[in-house]
């Protein structure tokens, strides 16, 4: 390399490295959207209230007392704490918003207006801004002022009604999976708006994401199945071979027999040659109607096998199958290791290993540069970069207690 340009050319390009984002969100869904924006190259500034984001008080906690969930969703971002109740705080926020292309927020409709950076201001002063609102129920329609979370998203979307077991209460998704899915939808909406801006002289718009509608992504087929059947889809009476994991010697294992050759080969692997040869089982509907005739025998055979041994034997025959893996097993998983699906932040090489890219892009890779910042860790630099503040101004803000 002979000059600075060459260095720049050699560094991997990032898809969104032309974008600055102000992250005002306080939910897992909103912060996952901005985490993805950061992972694909955007400069994301998390604006936290004095004392730090509420996300930092969510369990579980690492040994040093930091919230694990906050470490996950705030990674790759810079942080400033700002008292927006103070006029100078609102002024600084407004200056940062003016210099940014995307703003992401998760407040009740009206919150941004009270800070002087709402939709009316956007339209009048920052028409190129893409404002992304990620809220439980969306911006209108009658539920917009109600509180909510992933539990209400799963309940309203219909998804809870088909999840879990028929004789038990409906289940939400585990952990924060529903919130992350809403975050992915919000990321997709934000980047769609960027693509539109690319072609239309930078014109911005308001992206409205309801967590309940993002949960609907996974209920859409069951909704139509309900209407076409004239009967609710409902929950299953229990997990069996056709629906989910069943016990094996050292855990649980799923073997969804969705194609004829899966059935033939799986029965051969289990030493059930008679079932393997029975051509009636080539049809999915036949399985479903005659499950009682074969299920006990097959599950008895499976209970004598180990999950990884079974997975290897079936995988060799290209049969769809899957062992239930826990987080300890995943962290040692040879395939994920080979795919570099565990990553330490490049600026924190001794830190925790994070899950890696959700998808691999050949020209503009995902990258995890930074661990999660401490609340307000980057305030000075952020105000210089994103608000064009001088050091004198910044010192003044700190003295007035505006920086948390």
């Amino acid at each position, binding site marked *: 390399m002979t000059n600075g340009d060459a260095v720049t050319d050699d560094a991997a390009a990032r898809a969104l490295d032309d974008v600055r984002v102000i992250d005002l969100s306080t939910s897992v869904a909103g912060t996952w959207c901005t985490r993805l924006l950061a992972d694909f190259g955007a400069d994301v500034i998390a604006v936290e209230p004095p004392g730090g984001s509420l996300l930092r008080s969510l369990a579980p906690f690492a040994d040093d007392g930091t919230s694990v969930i906050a470490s996950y969703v705030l990674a790759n971002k810079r942080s400033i704490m700002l008292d927006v109740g103070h006029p100078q705080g609102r002024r600084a926020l407004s200056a940062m918003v003016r210099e940014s292309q995307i703003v992401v927020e998760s407040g009740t409709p009206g919150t941004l207006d009270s800070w002087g950076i709402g939709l009316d201001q956007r339209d009048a002063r920052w028409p190129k801004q893409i404002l992304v609102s990620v809220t439980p129920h969306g911006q209108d329609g009658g539920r917009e002022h109600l509180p909510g979370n992933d539990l209400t998203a799963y309940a309203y979307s219909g998804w*809870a009604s088909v999840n879990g077991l028929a004789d038990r209460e409906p289940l939400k998704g585990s952990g924060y999976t529903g919130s992350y899915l809403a975050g992915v939808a919000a990321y997709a909406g934000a980047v769609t708006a960027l693509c539109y801006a690319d072609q239309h002289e930078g014109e911005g718009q308001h992206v409205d994401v309801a967590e309940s509608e993002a949960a609907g992504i996974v209920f859409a087929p069951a909704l139509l199945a309900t209407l076409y059947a004239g009967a609710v889809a409902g929950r299953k009476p229990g997990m069996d071979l056709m629906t989910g994991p069943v016990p094996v010697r050292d855990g649980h294992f799923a073997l969804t027999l969705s194609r004829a050759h899966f059935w033939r080969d799986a029965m051969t692997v289990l030493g059930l040659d008679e079932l393997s040869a029975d051509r009636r089982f080539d049809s999915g509907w036949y399985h479903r109607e005659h499950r009682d005739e074969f299920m006990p025998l097959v599950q008895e055979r499976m209970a004598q096998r180990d999950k990884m041994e079974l997975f290897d034997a079936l995988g060799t025959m290209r049969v769809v199958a899957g062992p239930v893996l826990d987080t300890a097993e995943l962290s040692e998983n040879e395939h994920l290791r080979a795919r570099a699906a565990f990553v330490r932040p490049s600026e924190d090489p001794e830190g925790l290993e994070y899950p890696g890219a959700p998808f691999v892009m050949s020209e503009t890779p995902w990258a995890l540069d930074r661990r999660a910042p401490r609340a307000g860790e980057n305030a000075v630099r952020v105000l210089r970069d994103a608000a064009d503040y001088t050091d004198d101004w910044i010192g003044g803000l700190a003295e007035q207690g505006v920086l948390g």
Partner: protein
Amino acid sequence: MGGPLEGIRAIVLTQAWAGSLSTELLALMGAEVVQIEARRRLDSWRGSYDGPVPAGLRTVPTAVHAWNCSPNFNAVNLSKQELTLDLQSEEGIELFRGLIPYADIMVENFSPRVVGNLGIDYEALTAIKSDLIMCSLSAYGADGPWRNIPGIGGTIEPTSGQSGLLGYVDGPPLNSGRMFPDGVAGTYGFAALVTALHYRNRTGCGQYIDLSMQESNYGLIGDAVLEQAATGNVRPRMGNRHLTFAPHGIYPALGQVVGQVVGQVPGHAGGEEHWVALAAESAQQWAALCAVAERPQWASDTRFATNEARKLHEDELDAEIAAWTAEQERDEAVAALQAAGVVAAPVLDGFEVAADPTFRARGYVQDVDHPEAGVHAQFTAPFRLSGTPLEPARAAPLMGEHSEEVLSRFLDIDHDDYERLVESGVTGKGPPPGYEG
């Protein structure tokens, strides 16, 4: 006004759920999406040629072909066009290659080696269209020791760590009621495509996207992965409970018989289950819940005095709340809780969702008119853009519905040539020549 992606064209080989969803979102955002399907091996989400028409459609006179009346297929292929092509035939592959110059985007979700075997991998297609964006969506990605192992949502859920965390506190690992990993991978697939489109807008360069269903889903339990790395703790299954807040659950309302199995009963009108989802995420919400329930003894009970105490006594707390909800009408309890600022929702079933006034007012639920199945409520795009309102969603295509039109428009295939291609099974509608059901 055709939506934010008007002018973008995708020629895609997607099938089943995740792949089809990724390209459905393109179509709903205004891109022109031509989905290609094989008559000899129809999309598994259409079912099979010998399957039955769904029970509720048997009185609909137009609902005659089971493969056009599959709720799964019709739910995830809105607003697309469809061309059938036999990619096992030289002529079919040549027609496909002929369409690529007109494509901005190609997406496929075969097993990793298939496009190479067909001579239509990224290298081959970029020789035809240099700035093509191509996404391959597979179970385990394009490389690594598991690359050739097939997978579907029902097996990715276990291998991504999700099943191990999904289930009741006292129960075994579960798969979700509808394969959650497909929805995740499909949404990520669309996200990947628009990310690449933005980069192409800036630089003129296309690229290749390798999306592993396992990895995209594994990231959704990332906080449990980090927890294990930070503390060594393998998180248990938690039912509807929250790591921090209590109460947080789904409780039976008046009329709900716990243990009763509901579902798949023809003639079911909906609303036959009665469950209330509720949570208190602050001291104020807990106080409001106690007030709505008229249970001052909860508020004064030391076991429930703080969130920390409630987490420690969650079994007793849940039993108390369930005893209260069991005497309440579902919708009345939800309305009272919401009015008091408590997180609450009814668990809706499919019929109730279809009629939900909020989803309808927002345009998320739309009545879609399908030429065979008739008019039904469907979910549409999960985000809304203020400056580029969307056209109403169009029904999923019938098998091969747009074959002649697409071949004529892009490749100048005239009617006689089209008929010849149909006879030889290269394109057409429904079962291929010689098919015996």
